[in-house]
C-alpha cells in the first residue's frame, strides 16, 4: 500500500472518519446536518471530504479554514468511510490538498429530476449516519 504526501495510506480504510466542512449556514441545524450538505458537485460529480478526526480540533479547523477559502467556516460533520460504502457509494483519496478525499459513485441518470431524487436518497443516508454536526 502506498503512502500519500500527507502520510496517510492511499486506501481509505473503513474505520476512518471523514469530515465534511460546513460553509453555508443553511446546511445544518444545531442538532442535525441536512442532506443537501452531502449532495455532489455537478461538475466533478463528487463530494469533497477530509480524512480528519474530530480531535485535535485545532488541526481540524486549520484544514477546514483552508478548504473554506476565506468563507465562513461554521463547523464540520463526520461520517465513517464504512457508512459511505454501506450506503452504496465509494470514497477514495484525492490529494492534494493533504488529507483530501472524495465520495464518488453518485447516480447520474439523464433525467435531471430523477437524478436529484436518486442522489437525495443517498444524501439522506449520509446525513442520517452523520448525526449532529460539530460547530466552531
Amino acid at each position: 500500500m502506498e503512502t500519500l504526501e500527507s502520510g496517510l495510506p492511499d486506501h481509505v480504510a473503513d474505520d476512518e472518519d471523514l469530515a465534511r466542512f460546513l460553509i453555508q449556514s443553511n446546511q445544518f441545524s444545531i442538532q442535525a446536518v441536512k442532506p443537501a450538505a452531502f449532495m455532489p458537485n455537478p461538475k466533478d460529480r463528487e463530494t469533497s471530504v477530509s480524512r480528519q478526526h474530530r480531535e485535535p480540533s485545532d488541526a481540524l479547523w486549520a484544514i477546514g479554514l483552508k478548504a473554506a477559502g476565506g468563507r465562513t467556516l461554521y463547523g464540520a460533520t463526520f461520517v465513517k468511510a464504512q457508512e459511505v460504502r454501506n450506503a452504496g457509494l465509494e470514497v477514495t483519496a484525492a490529494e492534494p490538498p493533504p488529507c483530501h478525499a472524495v465520495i464518488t459513485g453518485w447516480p447520474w441518470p439523464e433525467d435531471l429530476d430523477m437524478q436529484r431524487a436518486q442522489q437525495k436518497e443517498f444524501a439522506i443516508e449520509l446525513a442520517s449516519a452523520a448525526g449532529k454536526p460539530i460547530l466552531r
Partner: protein
Amino acid sequence: MPEIVSTLGFGFLAGYAALNTLVRTSSAVSCEAQSVRDVARTVVSYGESSESLFGDKNTVLSQLWAMFDECSEPDWDACGAEPLSGVAAGAAAVFIRALPSGVPMPELAPEPNGSISLDWIQSRHRMFSLSIASTNRLAYAWMDGTDKGHAVARFDGTKIPTRILEGIQSITDHGDTRVRAA
C-alpha cells in the same frame, strides 16, 4: 418542457415586487397614474395583510430570500457549487405558499446544483427531503426507519401533489424527537 412553476412562481414574485416599487417610489401626478398607484397599493396591502395571517410561512419565505442572496454567486460552498437559481427560488416560494395549514414548515438548504432543498427532519432516521429546481417536477426522497425511497412528482403551482403531502405527513405526524433548525 413547460415551466408552469417558473411562470407562477417567479412571475408572481417579480410582479409583486414591481407593484411594491410602484407604490413606494412613484411620483406620478396624472389621474390615470394616481388610479394605477391606488390599485397597486390595494394589492400590496392585501398581500401584506395576508402574510401577517401566515407568520410561519412568512418566516420561511424570508429565510428563503436570505439564503438566495447568500448563494446567488457561483462557488458559494468553496467546492464549485452553481449559484441558486432565481426560478427555483420563486418556485420554492410558490410551493411554501401552497402548503396546507397544519403542515409543518420545512427547513431550507441550498444544493450545489443550484436547486433549493426543503427538508422535514424529525430525527436522524426520519426525514423527508424535497428538491426544487427550475422545472415543474419535484424530486424527493425519504427515510423512515428502515424504509427509504425516492420519486419525482409534477407540481402545477397550486396544489401540492398528494404523494408528497402524504410523505411529509407520515414523517411529521408521529415521533417525539423532532429536530428542527432554529
